[in-house]
């Protein structure tokens, strides 16, 4: 039925509509609202003004504009919903109630359109299109949706231009407050608005319950209402967000049936906890507070909520599954964070603005040089890495595959059982947790994470090289330094040799140098006074950087103070040592912070007897280095245009001869850093330091960054100092340095041609894939003993002799978690003992000895990749080859010329059932002597072959003795048929269990509470530092450029 102004009979038949206008301390907008109601073309309309709050003049104001309206004054300020509920008491005979805020203006036909559509759609609740008060052409809301947790989600972009693009009538989940038309009988059935919801959220609650009762909720865009949203002018007692949170939860608790509530409530709880943690971590305590208060507020009202659930159940017409069809999937709140909190687009815009500012930050020099340099570097990276970017990185040297998932890494991290060597109760490297957490945002894409952490080191280092020279203010200088750092052969050689540690140091070195320079505090800045940072924040900032680096290369805690000391040494030569000394303090402090952050892992190398060898991390310690000539050229492997490598030191020498003042002084400091790195690498290679050191590419990275800075200083000196000299050799030197910069590009340019920086195309995975075959695995768990140069082994090695290490991997060629070096815990030294005995000719039964340790394969590795790959050869000592070759129980296998591989014919599965006399020999306390004299393998059958996670395996065992070739520890438990078997130490180092009755069994290591406490302590430590950084971060005022974008 259509109503028209001219149809009197229709007017008489028009269903009566009562507008309930709730007003509280209204501003001048009240009159406009009343006027719009007065102007409605709906023929059967009554207005009831419900006045709350303290304003006394409401009656007069209403009378002045809409004299026909009824005004009813309510005591206090019960809120919109409870006030609106008054219609149930005072109005009789209405067909529709229209609940109206006092800050809306209705188009003249709005109510008519709503009523028409209510009949046409048989809707219980209808609502208009809400537009902005001051700009009616912009949309506010056209109905709303909500997620399962009651978080409303807009249907339109707020402020979007209204071009009638949303003008279709449609079902929605919520009619947002402002103006809502409700069928009177429905409103009565529902009992009105929830009296406990005063402001904010009453619309959601009403609409949700209406749908549960079988009513449709429809938005009618033909009815347009301007909404001022003046709640901010009259704030409620509690913050709106807090009200929204608690009312939302109340609605959820009220409206869902039992089944859905059981499903949804735990999710909401998890989300709430996450928000609380996020709130605490990010310093947004209000966020945490809102959640806590919402839950406590509702828990206090559980009785009331139960009553409302009962009453709703009585009128329920639709199941929850039907009601939820109009809800949005997932979490609107999380999406809201992504949109509202992270501001990804905004941040990107700001970062682009920052980059733009970076590029234009220099005070001198042509911008095109900068763009040219960046273009060259980007091109080099893309061309040179083109074959690596989209493919799996081969497992060469330290580039082990990221073959452990997020869950696996985190479970390994929290476990108290370290697999290194023959295993031990020992702390895990922090890196396991860091890598696991880093894999989460990548949705577990560990291959991508590896690409980022390996190939990403190149651009990260180059960017650091660019930032390093920022204070100098010379575009040309910065570009030259960046290019020189980008074309330094160090990272490419490291990549070709599979030195992950070298790449990480390359990436981190300039960033470390930036902070050390700031700690010195006397490098003049082109952008203002010299930056001086040596406060707590500087120490902690560098400490976190060092800690992140040390998670992979623990010796970073030593390298950084050495670099700082070299800076001070340079300052001693040129003056300003007292000021520069602050760098040493900051560096030492940072290293201390890093050590603390890595507790309890730090104890692995800090406790007496733990061993220097453990400080390698992913970078093995070696006793060799290239010649000094190669070191000076940062050339750490054979091949390439090594003679052109001299270009870098030549270019970096310019400021030493033409620089004045701080240009010269800082050039000397840079050279001192470089000399310190060269000396360290050379002396370590010569064995003069008494300890093994990481490969040269790890040690030289800070020197490379320092020389890049020196190149920039040379350009600045060229720009500022050269004009002060008469024409002569200095001008020639400048030309030579410039030519050197250009020449330095050539080797890397040529190296980029093969598209993979000479990283071998293949790895040993194919050759060793037989170890993964089911029939091999079914024969029992085993270990692989690797022997060779530490740089060649795919797993972390333990020292056997200078440049000779042994490493152990389980059930294959090595995994990510086996890459981190560790002390030769307890019984691990048995492997070395056995090898030395064999080396001395004391035994020809090395196989039996190693077999009792679970070693099935012995591999002597000469190269990190197959022979045909051309990977660098590190010859196996002839004595070692002869030692292994003369063993009676090692059968040679032909795999690849790069590997000399033996299968141990006397191996005992890591988890084996022993029978007969062999079982009785386990009580012996002489592991090697007993093993050599006893053929344990003949009496061993594999058991517990199904691996069920870290330090956990399952399978059937029989009655008798179960031998577990892992270091003896009380944490090992074997449960057979629900009973725990008795554990004892066997062969003086391993575990054996006495099983009375066979059956299905589970072997596991139970992590001690102490380890859990340590994990919690470390997590809290990192979290506390993160919170501290966030809360104390300097507030940077956005400049005009940022604002304008």
């Amino acid at each position, binding site marked *: 039925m259509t109503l028209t102004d001219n149809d009197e009979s229709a007017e008489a038949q028009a269903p009566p509509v009562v507008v309930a206008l709730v007003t509280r301390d209204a501003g001048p907008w009240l009159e406009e609202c009343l006027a719009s109601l007065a102007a409605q073309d709906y023929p059967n309309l009554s207005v009831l003004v419900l006045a709350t709050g303290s304003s006394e003049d409401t009656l007069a104001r209403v009378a002045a504009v809409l004299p026909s309206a009824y005004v009813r004054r309510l005591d206090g300020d019960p809120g919109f919903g409870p006030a609106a509920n008054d219609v149930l008491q005072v109005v009789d005979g209405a067909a529709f109630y229209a609940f109206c805020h006092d800050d809306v203006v209705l188009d003249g036909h709005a109510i008519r359109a709503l009523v028409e559509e209510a009949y046409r759609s048989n809707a219980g609740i209808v609502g208009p299109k809400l537009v902005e008060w001051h700009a009616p052409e912009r949309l506010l809301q056209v109905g709303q949706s909500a997620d399962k947790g009651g978080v409303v989600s807009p249907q339109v972009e707020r402020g979007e231009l209204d071009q009638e693009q949303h003008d279709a009538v449609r079902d929605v989940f919520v009619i947002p407050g402002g103006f809502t038309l409700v069928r009177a009988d429905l409103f009565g059935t529902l009992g009105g608005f929830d009296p406990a919801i005063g402001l904010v959220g009453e619309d959601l609650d009403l609409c949700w319950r209406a749908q549960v009762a079988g009513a449709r909720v429809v938005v009618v865009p033909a009815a347009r209402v301007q909404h001022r949203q003046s709640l901010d002018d009259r704030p409620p007692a509690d913050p709106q967000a807090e009200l929204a949170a608690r009312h939302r939860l109340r609605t959820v608790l009220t409206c869902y049936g039992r089944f859905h509530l059981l499903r949804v409530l735990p999710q909401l709880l998890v989300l709430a906890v996450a928000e609380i943690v996020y709130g605490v971590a990010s310093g947004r305590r209000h966020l945490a507070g809102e959640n806590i208060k919402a839950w406590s507020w509702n828990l206090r009202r559980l009785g009331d909520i139960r009553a409302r659930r009962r009453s709703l159940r009585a009128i329920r017409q639709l199941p929850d599954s039907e009601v939820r069809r109009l809800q949005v999937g997932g979490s609107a709140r999380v999406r809201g964070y992504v949109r509202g909190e992270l501001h990804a687009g905004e941040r990107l815009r700001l970062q682009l603005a920052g980059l733009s500012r970076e590029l234009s930050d220099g005070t001198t020099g042509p911008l095109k040089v900068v763009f040219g340099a960046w273009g060259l570097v980007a091109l080099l990276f893309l061309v040179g890495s083109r074959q690596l970017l989209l493919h799996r990185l081969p497992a060469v040297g330290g580039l082990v595959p990221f073959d452990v998932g997020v869950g696996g890494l985190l479970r390994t991290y929290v476990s108290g059982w370290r697999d290194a060597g023959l295993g031990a109760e020992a702390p895990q490297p922090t890196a396991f947790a860091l890598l696991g957490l880093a894999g989460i945002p990548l949705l577990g894409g560990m291959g991508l994470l590896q690409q980022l952490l390996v190939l990403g080191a190149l651009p990260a280092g180059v960017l650091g090289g660019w930032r390093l020279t920022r204070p100098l203010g010379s575009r040309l200088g910065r570009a030259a330094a960046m290019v020189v750092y980008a074309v330094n052969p160090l990272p490419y050689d490291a990549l070709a040799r599979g030195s992950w540690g070298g790449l990480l140091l390359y990436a981190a070195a300039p960033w470390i140098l930036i902070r050390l320079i700031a700690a010195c505090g006397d490098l003049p800045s082109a952008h203002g006074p010299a930056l001086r940072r040596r406060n707590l924040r500087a120490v902690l900032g560098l400490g976190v950087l060092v800690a992140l680096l040390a998670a992979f290369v623990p010796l970073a805690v030593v390298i950084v103070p050495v670099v700082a000391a070299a800076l001070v040494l340079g300052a001693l*030569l*040129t*003056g300003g040592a007292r000021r520069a000394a602050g760098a040493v303090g900051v560096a030492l402090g940072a290293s201390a912070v890093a050590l603390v952050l890595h507790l309890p892992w730090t104890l692995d190398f800090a406790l007496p007897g733990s061993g220097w060898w453990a400080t390698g991390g992913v970078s093995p310690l070696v*006793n*060799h*280095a*290239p*010649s*000094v*000539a*190669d*070191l*000076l050229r940062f050339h750490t*492997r*054979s091949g390439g245009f090594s003679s052109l490598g001299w270009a870098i030191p030549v270019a970096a020498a310019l400021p*030493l001869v033409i620089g*004045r*003042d701080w240009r*010269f002084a800082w050039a*000397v400091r840079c050279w*001192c850093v470089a*000399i310190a790195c*060269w*000396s360290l690498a*050379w002396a370590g290679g*010569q064995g003069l330091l008494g300890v093994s050191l990481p490969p040269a590419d790890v040690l030289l990275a800070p020197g490379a960054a320092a020389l890049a800075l020196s190149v920039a200083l040379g350009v600045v000196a060229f720009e500022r100092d050269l004009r002060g000299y008469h024409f002569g050799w200095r001008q020639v030197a400048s030309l030579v340095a410039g030519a050197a910069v250009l020449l330095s590009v050539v080797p890397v340019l040529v190296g980029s041609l093969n598209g993979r920086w000479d990283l071998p195309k293949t790895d040993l995975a194919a050759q060793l894939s037989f170890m993964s075959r089911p029939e091999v695995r079914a024969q029992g768990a085993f270990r692989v003993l690797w022997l060779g140069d530490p740089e060649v082994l795919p797993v972390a090695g333990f020292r*056997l*002799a200078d*440049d*000779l290490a042994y490493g152990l991997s389980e059930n294959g060629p090595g995994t990510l978690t086996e890459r981190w070096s560790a002390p030769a815990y307890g019984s691990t030294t048995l492997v070395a003992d056995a*090898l030395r*005995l*064999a*080396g*001395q*000719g*004391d*035994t*020809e*039964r090395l196989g039996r000895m190693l077999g009792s340790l679970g070693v099935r394969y012995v591999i002597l590795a000469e190269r990190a990749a197959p022979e045909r790959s051309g990977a660098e*050869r*590190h*010859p*196996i*000592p*002839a*004595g070692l080859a*002869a*030692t292994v*070759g*003369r063993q*009676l*129980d090692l*059968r*040679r296998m032909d795999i690849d010329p790069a590997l000399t591989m033996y299968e141990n*014919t006397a191996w005992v599965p890591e988890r084996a059932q022993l029978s007969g006399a062999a079982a009785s020999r386990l009580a012996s306390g002489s592991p*090697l*002597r007993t093993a*050599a*004299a006893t053929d344990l393998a003949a009496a061993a059958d594999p058991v517990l072959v199904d691996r069920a996670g870290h330090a956990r395996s399952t399978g059937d065992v029989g009655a008798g003795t179960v031998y577990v070739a892992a270091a003896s520890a009380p944490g090992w438990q074997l449960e057979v048929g629900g009973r725990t078997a008795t554990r004892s130490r066997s062969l003086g180092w391993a575990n054996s269990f006495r099983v009375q009755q066979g059956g299905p069994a589970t072997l596991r290591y139970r992590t001690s509470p102490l380890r859990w406490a340590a994990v919690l302590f470390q997590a809290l430590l990192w979290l506390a530092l993160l919170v501290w950084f966030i809360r104390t971060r300097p507030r940077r005022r956005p400049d005009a450029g940022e604002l304008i974008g």
Partner: protein
Amino acid sequence: MTRRLPALAVIVSVLALLVVFGTEGHATRTPAFGRVNADVMPAADPAGALSSTWYCAGGTATAGGVANLTVVVANVGASPRTGTVTWIPTGGGKRTVVPLRVGPDRSQAVAATDSVDAPIVSALVELDGGEVAVEHAVSGPHGSAAAPCASEPSNRWYLANGVTERDADETLALFNPFPDDAVVDIAVSSEQGRGAPSQLQGLPIAAGTTTFVRLGDHVRYRKVAAVAVVARTGRLVVDRIQSFDGTAGRSGISLAVAAPAPASTWYFPDGLYEGGLAESWHVYNPGDREAQVTLEIVPAKGNPPEPYDITIPPHTQQTVEATPDRVASGVAHSSTIRSLNGVPVVAERAIDARKPAPRQGWSSALGAPRADRRWVFPIGEANVNTDEWIVIHNPGAQRRTVSVVALANGQRLPIEGLQDLRIGPAGRLALRLGDHISRTPLPVVVEADGPVVAEREAYAVGRLGLSAIIGIPVG
């Protein structure tokens, strides 16, 4: 900048120092670990050793076999040793493990025919500690002979002597105790030059087997046949069983373990030539460089003759006969073969005793490449059937004192009259055990206060049999 020069001077100086001292890198330095080559001669492990393994390569184990094998284990330590003898037959029968327990100062003999029946058998002796020495003996219709077993396998073995003439049978026993097959090349150097018979190139020795190679089938009628056995893959142990049928006047059987490496010096404590007793030295240069060696002879009485220098081209052998112009007839002597240019060689001394000599037989064995303080002879007897001598040579420049101790059923029995005997520099002592003791068996230990070399001579009394071998040093 007033400080420019000092700063530059420091930087340049440090760089110069680095360049001067750091010209050589160590990027490809090969670390050291373990021993590359096996010991040149069999040696017993020291007391603290975890285990001892001995490889006895060749023999037969059949009724009436030509060289039935027996191993004799002597424990000269203070603790009992337990272990096993694993008989590894080829061509019949299964591998048999015989438990073994040898008390301190005892010896124990284990015969192959007690456990297996096979045309070829080898023995692997494993014991749980050091100070254990193992010899093996073969016996058959041509007499009997003994030699030390090998204490280590190797991928190359050398013998400087051997005869493939009509009356001779030179058999090489190639024992591969490992779980991998070995592939070997055998080269022969004779008076006719060097040869590498095609059938003996790439010869496979299956894992856990022994192969007998009758050299006469490939290199016929050679007066001297020095041999180099080089494994392309794998390791093995090589024995030589040399026998003569008497058709050309000589007869007997000789057993010798090959040398896994050449050496610069070889000592032979004993030596004699006279009517019916021929003595010769055989020197083989398996290397690629020419060897300049000298033969030094020290007679028991009289002045020593001038050293006799020999030039041996690569991969060839030379034989030096004992002649009146080199050594006085009927005068016992010690001899030393020494390389003058550092090129190591392999040296054997052969004795061919025929009538009218009072003892008959043929023996050829390697010398001792080193001197030591303690020597063990697990096999031995002094009775009416066997005339056993211990000959000790002091190659050093200082006087030494030596004693001979018998291992008598768990007791160390100092042999009366053979205690604290003195040997002057370059001197020798020849001790006839039968003059002081009569025991069967009679394992003995020679102990000295400095490095000496000891050799055992055993003669069958009134029958065929002659054995002259160097003892086993105890580390």
